[in-house]
């Protein structure tokens, strides 16, 4: 079991309010990702749940039990840190066994669980090495192993992949998702990378300046963003926003069109926006065009990789009328 419920949680450091008021319900077995720009309070929120920071006011319930004041060890949660926080003077085996040793588990139980964790994470041949002698990905796995053996109610991940190179990050992303399928334990994962959030989460919490902007499944967030912030944050490349008269045509203060929701033509059609190609980023599978549209500014367009454009080409853009997002003056979706 591992349901986590936050009720009107507030956190301030002295005068500075980091989290004004957050309420969240995370179901047992869910993979929830906290995502947001840096400084949005996502790590602080995770540390509040872990018990590494004191909650200013509000309640944190784990499995319905009030744990707001409980020390971290009593909450039954395991955390994987950004720096992995392995104990450098201990072997991999001792690192993984440490929580069990602290819980005074019998020797056989410790050995058995460490072996199991090592097998699950492909670490069996490294058990006697020091963390220093491991690669970044292996260290990451040891940190996860140390979390697994405790059989926690929930795993907390604090930007665990940000120290890895791009290829390894994709790999570890898959491994963590797979681990979640296997263990079916609640996981909370903090990241600033919306791709990680989209690919891993059952549900995503989008945070901005300590507020929950939206809490929903990845596709919900993509298809029905609650406001302009979420619309701009989720999706890559970023959504194009258009203000002014063009937005007024759609009875909105501003409208947004995702780069993938344009049709692109090289000859003029009625209603199309005329623009000049600035930079064309060719990724092979896709091409991202940065198009200067007269009166509307710079637009990012995603098109398939077979078409080639060069600087200064004239193009005509037609947004997909069914996929235009409309926002009011306060930035809320209409």
């Amino acid at each position: 079991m591992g349901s986590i419920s936050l009720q009107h949680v507030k956190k301030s450091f002295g005068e500075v309010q980091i989290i004004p008021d957050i309420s969240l319900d995370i179901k047992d077995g869910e993979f929830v990702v906290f995502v947001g720009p840096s400084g949005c309070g996502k790590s602080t929120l995770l540390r509040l749940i872990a018990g590494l920071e004191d909650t200013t006011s509000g309640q944190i319930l784990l499995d319905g039990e009030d744990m707001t004041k409980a020390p971290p060890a009593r909450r039954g949660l395991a955390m994987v840190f950004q720096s992995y926080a392995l104990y450098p003077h201990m072997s991999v085996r001792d690192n993984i066994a440490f929580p069990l040793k602290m819980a005074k588990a019998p020797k056989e139980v410790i050995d058995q669980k460490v072996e199991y964790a090592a097998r699950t994470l492909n670490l069996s041949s490294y058990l006697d090495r020091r963390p220093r002698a491991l690669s970044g990905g292996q260290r990451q796995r040891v940190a996860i192993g140390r979390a697994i053996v405790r059989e926690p109610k929930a795993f907390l991940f604090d930007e665990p992949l940000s120290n890895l190179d791009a290829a390894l990050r994709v790999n570890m992303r898959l491994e963590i998702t797979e681990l979640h399928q296997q263990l079916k334990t609640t996981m909370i994962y903090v990241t600033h990378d919306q791709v990680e959030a989209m690919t891993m989460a059952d549900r995503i919490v989008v945070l901005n300046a300590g507020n929950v902007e939206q809490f929903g499944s990845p596709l919900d967030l993509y298809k029905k963003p609650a406001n302009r912030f979420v619309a701009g944050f989720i999706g890559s490349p970023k959504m194009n926003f258009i203000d002014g008269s063009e937005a007024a045509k759609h009875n909105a203060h501003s409208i947004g069109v995702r780069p993938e929701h344009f049709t692109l033509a090289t000859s003029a059609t009625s209603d199309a926006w005329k623009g000049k190609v600035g930079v064309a980023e060719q990724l092979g599978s896709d091409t991202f065009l940065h198009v200067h549209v007269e009166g509307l500014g710079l637009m990012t367009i995603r098109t398939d990789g077979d078409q080639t454009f060069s600087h200064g080409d004239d193009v005509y853009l037609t947004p997909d009328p069914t996929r235009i997002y409309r926002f009011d003056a306060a930035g809320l979706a209409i």
Partner: protein
Amino acid sequence: MATAQTRTLSRVMMAPAVIVLLIWMIVPLVMTLWFSFQNYSLINPMMTGFAGWGNYRYVLGDPSFTQSLINTLILVGGVLVITIVGGTLLALLLDQPIWGQGILRIIVISPFFVMPPVAALIWKNGFMHPGYGMLGHLWKAFGLQPVDWFNQYPLFSVIVIVAWQWLPFATLILLTALQSLSEEQREAAEMDGANAINRFYYIILPHMARSITIVILIQTIFLLGIFAEIRVTTGGGPGYASTNIAFLVFRTGILSNDIGAGSAGGVVAVVIANIVAIFLMRAVGKNLDA
């Protein structure tokens, strides 16, 4: 220093400094070695000439030598224990976030800036004197007979004074070690269910091992040659109760005016220091490997 030309140039440029340093070291050492094999007494100018191993036989055969050797080891060991244990505890305290941390740290390290003879005099007259020392008054306040520290516990008193001087050094080094421990490691241990004592034993202490080693090595080098504190307070006495090897050399060479035997004692002290260094490196040196 890539090319042969720059290498040669750098050697030529460094040569004067290196040569001066070498002379500075080699000349006194050779002179001491030379005197240690000579009959050379300031009292009896008629007694000259080659002495063979006589001076060494005289120094090593003297019962006060054994006692001085034991005293030296007790002095070094005692100060090390007090400074390492006390330094660790003080470092743990100073690592806590408190108001006025900066000032407090300066106060804590200030004994290190007091010159050894001055420190010894402060302790001798200000604290340990049975008549007008602070400790004497304290004892009297409880209706007890004041302790005459330098007569009753001479070696212990010297250890206390020297430990007081070196405690700041140990505290400072250990504090920086403590501060370099990553916060996340501490938090990870906390999440893993380690209480404060376990965190200290399994996480903090191993992290500080290298710094403790450095403190032990540096302090041993200096503590083997403790002189001023003994000279100012007990004068090595009563009897030989607080005489260490360095002070024995002084007693033999200067107080007894026997330069030959004093030099032999000095050479023996150098040999002992090297033996201690070898044992020490064997015992704790592995902590220095990265």
